[in-house]
Structures are given as C-alpha cells and as structure tokens.
C-alpha cells in the first residue's frame, strides 16, 4: 500500500496522492468503499425522483435537471477518483469502461454546444412572441395591432417549422419580391439552430453515446464498474432530455428507447421520466416539432390559436372574444417572461456543465495516464 504522501501545490502528482484522513486497513476501507458506491447509486435515484413530474421539460425543470446532474457528477468523482490508487482504474474492466465514459463525455460537449445554439434560436422565437403580445395588449384592439400581431405570429410559426426542418443552411433570401406577412421569416431562412458543423447530428450523437452502455454483469457488478455505468446512464439521459426539449441540429430519428434497467432502484425514476418524455416525443415527431420544451409547446398552441383569432378579426371585436384573447395573450406574455428570465441562466448552467465535465475528464485522463505507466507514452 503506497505511503501517504505530501501534496505539492500545482503538482499533478500531488493531486493524485491526496489521501483521505482515514486509517486504511484492508477490511475497513473496503467496507467504506462499498458503502460509498451504494450511497452513490441511491442518491442518483433520490435525486431523479425529486424532479417534479409536472412541468416536465420546462425551462425550470431543465435547470433542476442540470443541477441534479452536477450533484451526481460531483459525487461520482468523489467516489471513484478521490483517494484512489491510480492502478485500480487501469485494471479491467475499467480499462475499457472508463475510456468509454470519457468518450461519452466528449460527445456530450458537442451536445451542450448544440443545445446552447438551440436556446439562442428560442430567443428569436421569444422576440416574435413578444411582438404579438405587445400588439395584442393594445386597447382598443384595432386592425393595425392585429395585423402586426398576425405578421409576428406567422413568422413565429414559420420559424418553429423551420427549426424542426432538416433543411441545410440555405442561401440568404435573394429574392425580395415575395413580400408578404412572412417577410420576417424569409429574411432568416436559415434555421438558427443549424449552425453546428456540417453533418453533425444530435440524434446520431445520442445514439453513439448509447452504444456500449450496458450494465456490468456478474462479478463485474460489484466494484467500480457499476458507478461508471450509472454515471454513463445519467449523462446520456440528461443529454437526451436536452436534445428532446431544445431544437438542435438534426434531431430526426432521435431514439426513444433507452437501455436502462427497469427494476433497479436507482434507475426507476429515470426510467419513468424517460418514458414520459419518449411518449411526448413520439406524439409530436410525426407532425414535426420544434422541441418538447414546455414553454415552446405552449407558445406554439397559443400561436395557432391567436393566428386564428387574427384571421377572423374585424374591428371592433366582440367583448367576450376579446376577453378570451386577453387571457391567451397574458399566458403568452407569461411564457415570454419565463423565457426572458430563464433562458440565459439555462445557457449559463449548460456552460457550467460543460466546464465541469471537461475538468473531470482532465482529472481522469491524468490519473489514467499515471496508471498506464507501462503503456508507451507518446514520444
């Protein structure tokens, strides 16, 4: 058993050698470790069961999801990495499972970037909705305001369709002659969310992340293979949920089947969430969807309803019709407020997730390199 070592600031050697302040007897540490591993899984289950079942995939819900993810990730690192003899991490099956996990981590970085771009696209939708809100708030409601609202709503709905489209980036609209209500949309024919690398596909990325994700069997299921599997599952689930919610490049064919163990405690809350989301996805996929984000779904519904109103509008409108519309406009306004308040923080959170998993990956890589003393270094 390596002796306790000093840690030198800034020395990566020092970081690895930090030991917990415990008496490390063989039996004692082993039990402690088992307990930690089990606690980790239990906590995962707890955290996901605490996610509210209603308001699924709203901005607030996604923010909570990411919070829980960060907690899981921190605990995972503590359990697997801290105080660990590096050579443990190089033994089978970890010598295969850890690099797999790190590969998933790298893939999720691109997902984070794609989702961030998608959230920018949503800001665009938000602005169009706000135009409609401002216009329809006007009292008395006249032709002018309704026309304005209709123009914005038409652009909004067109943009939503466009965010769903798998259309490649098209040239800027060269023809200016087609000036109609959707003129605004024409000026931005390229989907905002389609600015990832060419050929990048969110659904393919998720699919790739799912490959090789399998529960450890037999005697592998004790020891570190299990938490690695759990963490991998959590990571992929979170990324998958983000992709389902937020428009990002090429989500066609997003798989809805998840290889999560159904009966196991830690997985059950995730499984039930996953099934709910998958159901929604399947429903919407046929018609084309701009993403399951709750706010956007509602915005879409309201958009359609208000466009209908605008189409049939004649000044002056009947009072009860106006009352109805007022309610819807208020709802739309609330959604815009939620987006105004929530989109930026969500983007910041995703960025934090990005940072955190980059950092963790680095730490793992250092330890793995340390452990792989026997492998030929890259000289």
């Amino acid at each position, binding site marked *: 058993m*390596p002796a306790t*070592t000093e840690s030198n600031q800034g020395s990566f050697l020092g970081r690895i050698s930090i030991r917990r302040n415990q008496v490390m007897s063989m039996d004692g540490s082993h039990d402690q470790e088992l307990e930690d591993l089990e606690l980790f899984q239990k906590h995962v289950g707890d955290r996901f069961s605490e996610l509210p079942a209603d308001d699924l995939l709203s901005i607030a819900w996604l923010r909570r999801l990411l919070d829980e993810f960060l907690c899981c990730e921190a605990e995972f690192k503590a359990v697997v990495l801290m105080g660990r003899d590096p050579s443990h991490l190089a033994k089978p099956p970890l010598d295969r499972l850890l690099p797999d996990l790190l590969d998933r981590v790298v893939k999720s970085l691109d997902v984070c970037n794609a989702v961030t771009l998608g959230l920018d696209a949503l800001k665009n939708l938000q*602005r169009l909705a706000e135009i409609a809100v401002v216009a329809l708030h006007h009292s008395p409601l006249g032709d002018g305001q309704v026309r304005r609202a209709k123009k914005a709503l038409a652009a909004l709905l067109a943009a939503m369709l466009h965010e769903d489209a798998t259309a490649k980036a098209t040239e800027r609209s060269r023809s200016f002659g087609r000036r109609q209500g959707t003129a605004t949309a024409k000026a931005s024919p390229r989907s905002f969310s389609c600015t990832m690398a060419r050929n*990048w596909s969110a659904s393919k990325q998720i699919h790739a992340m799912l490959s090789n994700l399998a529960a450890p069997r037999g005697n592998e299921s004790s020891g570190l293979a299990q938490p690695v599997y759990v963490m991998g599952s959590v990571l992929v689930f979170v990324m998958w949920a983000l992709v389902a919610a937020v428009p990002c490049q090429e989500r066609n064919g997003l798989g809805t089947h998840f290889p999560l163990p159904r009966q196991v405690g830690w997985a059950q809350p995730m499984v039930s969430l996953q099934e709910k989301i998958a159901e929604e996805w399947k429903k919407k996929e046929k018609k084309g969807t701009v993403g399951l984000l709750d706010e956007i779904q509602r915005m879409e519904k309201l958009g359609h309803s208000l466009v209908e109103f605008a189409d049939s509008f004649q000044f002056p409108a009947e009072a009860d019709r106006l009352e109805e519309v007022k309610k819807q406009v208020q709802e739309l306004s609330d959604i815009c407020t939620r987006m105004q308040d929530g989109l930026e923080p969500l983007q910041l959170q995703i*960025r934090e997730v990005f940072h955190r998993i980059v950092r963790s990956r680095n730490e793992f*890589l250092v330890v793995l390199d340390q452990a792989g003393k026997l492998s030929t270094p890259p000289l």
Partner: protein
Amino acid sequence: MESLPLETAEKIILRWDSTASEEAREKMIFTGEHREDADLYLQAVDEIQRSLSSVAVSEKVNSAIQIAMARLEDEFRNILISHTNNASFDPTTEEESHHHPHHHQDPPSSSSSPMHPHNADDGEEVDKTSLLLRFDSDGAASSAASSYRSISSIREVDLLPSDAVYDLRCIAERMVSSGYLRECIQVYGSVRKSSVDASFRKLGVEKLSIGDVQRLEWEQLENKIRRWIRAAKVCVRTIFASEKKLCEQIFDGVGTAIDDACFMETVKGPAIQLFNFAEAISISRRSPEKLFKILDLHDALTDLMPDIDVVFDSKSSESIRVQAAEILSRLGEAARGILSEFENAVLREPSRVPVPGGTIHPLTRYVMNYISLISDYKVTLNELIVSKPSTGSRYSGDPGIPDMDLGEFEDKTPLDVHLIWIIVILQFNLDGKSKHYKDASLAHLFVMNNVHYIVQKVRGSPELREMIGDDYLKKLTGKFRQAATSYQRATWVRVLYCLRDEGLHVSGGFSSGVSKSALRERFKAFNGMFEEVHRTQAVWLIPDSQLREELRISISEKLIPAYRSFLGRFRSHLESGRHPENYIKYSVEDLEDAVLDFFEGIPVSQHLRRRSE
C-alpha cells in the same frame, strides 16, 4: 419643413401600403436617389406618430401606423440587403512576395466605399498592402482568401455608405419611437448575420465540432490553428469591430441599448462559432507535440483579448468575453498539463534496446530539441508555469524518480527549474538505459556521449544557457568527464595491467632476472586484449569529433608511453628467442594507428595493420 396635414399623411401611408397595391410592392421608397419620396414619407410617418399622442385616436390612424411600420420594416431590410450584397468582407491583399501569385479580383463596383483605416499612420508597413475591401457583384464567395496581412489592432471599415446609414437611422428612429424596436432588431440581425456568415466563409473559418477536432491528426490541426489565428484577428479587429461601428452609426441614441442588441444579434453566433474551435483545441488530449501550437494559440488569444474586451464591452456581450477568457485559461492549463506529461514521458520512456555503438539516444535528441523550443517560448511559458516541479524521491517516496535539491535554484524562475529537472530526469533515464549494455565500458561511453550532447546543446543556445545556468552546466560537464574517466578505467586498466613491471622479474642467481615465459604470456595477453578492444570499440561511436579526438588522445597518452617503455625494456629478452614476432606483434606506430580507429563506428578487419610487415 411644415408639418403635413393629417389627412395628407394618411394618404401617403396608404399609397405605399404594400399589401394593397402592385405598384407599392414593386417600387421602393428609399432608393438612394430621389430623396423627395423618402423625406415625404418620413414626414408623413412623423405626422401620424404625432397624432397618436392626441386624446382621441381614430382607428384609421391606428391602422396607418401599423401600415407605415410594416413598410418601413421592408424598406429597412431592402436598404440593408441591397448594400450587403455588395459589401461583404473579402480579405485579400496584394502579396509582395513573389512566391504567392495573387489572384486579382474584379474591379470595385461604383457603389464601393473607401476603407477608412482606424489609424492610418501607425507606422506599419502593411497600410498600403493591407486589407482591401473587395466588392463582388453578388454575395457569393468569389476567390478563396489566399493570404492576407495580419491585423494587429482594431481596424473598422465602413460597411455601408453614409447615405444608407442615414436612411437606416431615420427609419430606425421612427420604428423605435413607435414601439416597433423588436421588429427592427429582428430584421437588422438576420440580414447582417448572414453577411457575417458569408465573410466567415470567405475567410475560411470552419465549423468543426469538438468531436471533429478530436478525430483529426495533429498535423492537420496545426494547419487549422495557424489559419484560425490569422482569421481570428480579422474577425475580431475588423469584422466584428466594423459591425459594432455600423450598429452605433445607425442606432446610437435611438432607444436604449438597441445598438448593443443589434450587435449581439449579428455577431453572437459567429463569435461563438469562432471561439468554439479554440476551445476544442484547448480540450484536446494532451500530448507533448502539441505544446508549441497551443502556446501559439494562447499567445494569439492573449494578444486579441484587449480588442475582444473593447469590441464586446456591453453587458449583453459579457458571455463572449467570458468565454474567450475561459478558453485562454484552459489553454494555459493545457500547456501546463502538457509540460507535466512531457516530464512524465521522459522519465518513463521505456525503451530498453541499447543504442548500438553507445551513441546519442533518440530520446536525448528529442528532449534537447524540445527544451530548445521551450526556450524560444520562454516569455509565455514563464507566465504560465508558476510552480516548480515536485522533485525527488525524498518527496514522492518513489525510487523511480531522481532527486533534485530545489534549494540550489532559489533564484531561478519555475520554468528554468523545470528545464533543469527535465535534464535531470533525462539523465536518470539514460543512466537506467546504460545498464542494459553488457559491456560496462560501453555503458560509460553511452553516458558520456549523451551528457556531452546535452552540454553542447545548452552551450549552443544563449537562452538555454541562461535558463539552465552555468552552475548546473558545470555539473553536467563534470558528469561527462567522469563518464570518460570511468570508461577508461573500465577498458584500459586491465590492458595496461599487462604492461606492468611486477611479476616479470624473478629473483635470484645469475639469470637475467626476467621470466621469459611470463613475458610471453604478457605480450600474448596484451595483444589479445588490445585486439579485442580494438575490434570492439572501433564500432563504437562518439559522434562529436572533438570529444572523440580528446578521448583518443587521452587513451594514447596512457597507452603509448606504457607500451613504448615496456617494449623498450623487455623486447630484447624475446628477440633472442623463438618467433619473437608472435609476441611482439605491434610497434608503437601500429598502436598509434590503431587508436585512430576507435569510436568511428566502422568495423575494422580482423587483424590490425602491421607496419612492421
């Protein structure tokens, strides 16, 4: 100008309602030519707006304002698009060098506007041949940006002619004061963003995912990094800066922070796309060969940061500044990590196959080249490397790591200490490798060769020498000298032992006092040993000619006098006997010649040349 009567104003607005008549759709109000239409229209809009603030607003007026705003929105878009088609940024220069023939563009169209360099006389030679704004007849990418001068400070260009800017501003004022600022931002952002995207394409700014970057070979990435560095300077200092200027020209003072909002709409996506590449590089797996390009990237970004801070100075653009700073910090971390990786790799380099002939090990060359490059980058690295290496078995308890007393290097920078440490662990590794030689002499030779190489490399570079310091250099010199001595001891003690006096004399009586049989044995032994050493060590190599000479001279200085004296004293005893030539095989000259064969790395024939034949 007199204000228009309201009715007249309404008529004008309605006349230009594009949803109402074909004619209204086909003609534009703001064409850059007849100003009267435009001025009149604006007047009409102003009149309508004025009447909105009166107590009783008619439904007609209500409707008219929306028609006017819709029209103005279209006009706004049209002005932007018709000029954007002509003025997307196309960076090419006239290349002074003969090596890169320049592809000439079409001459500028008549609507071109001259470039206004920010500081025309900052003494850079680049001014005349620096970026020229090229104009294409349509927005499609014409020539590839073959090469362009590096921009070293912010240089905005006027993206639109000033009368277009004026018109846009007039329109924007009306739209914003009527509460239509969102529409304005929407239109502006989408058109200008497309233009920036087109400029990016022409610059060759690629969209690569992090996965793409991980998969590419490092050599390809080096090229891309080089291109990125050049492109990023143009993007930040000219493209983004010019867009910002345009926003200010149009929107400054119009509403609150509209110019910021429009600017961010325009550049946020492209900026993120630009920085994502640098970020992907900063995340890539660390391996030693990446260090210097990563430092290049780090330096370029450091150089750009002040301009990034200036261009993205608003609150809404904070995230971009933050991301750039994060990337910079990550690049620094990556550099530190790579240096650690490198040190580890040097320590652990496991090859056991001994280098034939005891010559310079590839590891030695690699490491010395590497630290020589490090010395080239010392300015940046001195800023990044802030802690000294944790060294020595005392600290790590690992006998596989050499000791180094940091106390000797109190006044050296951490980077310097790292370099010394690298040399220490290189030697440690080499010492380990030397043990794989079966022949102890060769082991010493190997150490001597390699440490000498290190010394030469350090001496040959003023930076390295200054960083390593003469004290440590002295230590290294001492080490290879000692290796030379150890070599000589290992090989020649036993050879010279044959030429010793003791044991040859027999006591007593009338006899000459020298045992002939013993003498014959000695000669035989000497000859045999020498031949073997000669044959073996001719194939050994000392690449440095001066060192080779010195060692040969040193050998000769001990060997030749000893042999000469031995010959002189004892040959006569054998010459009178049978076959003296079997024993006295070599003359002094023969030996002198033979020594010249040593360490050439060339095998010699079985037998020594014998002059005396």
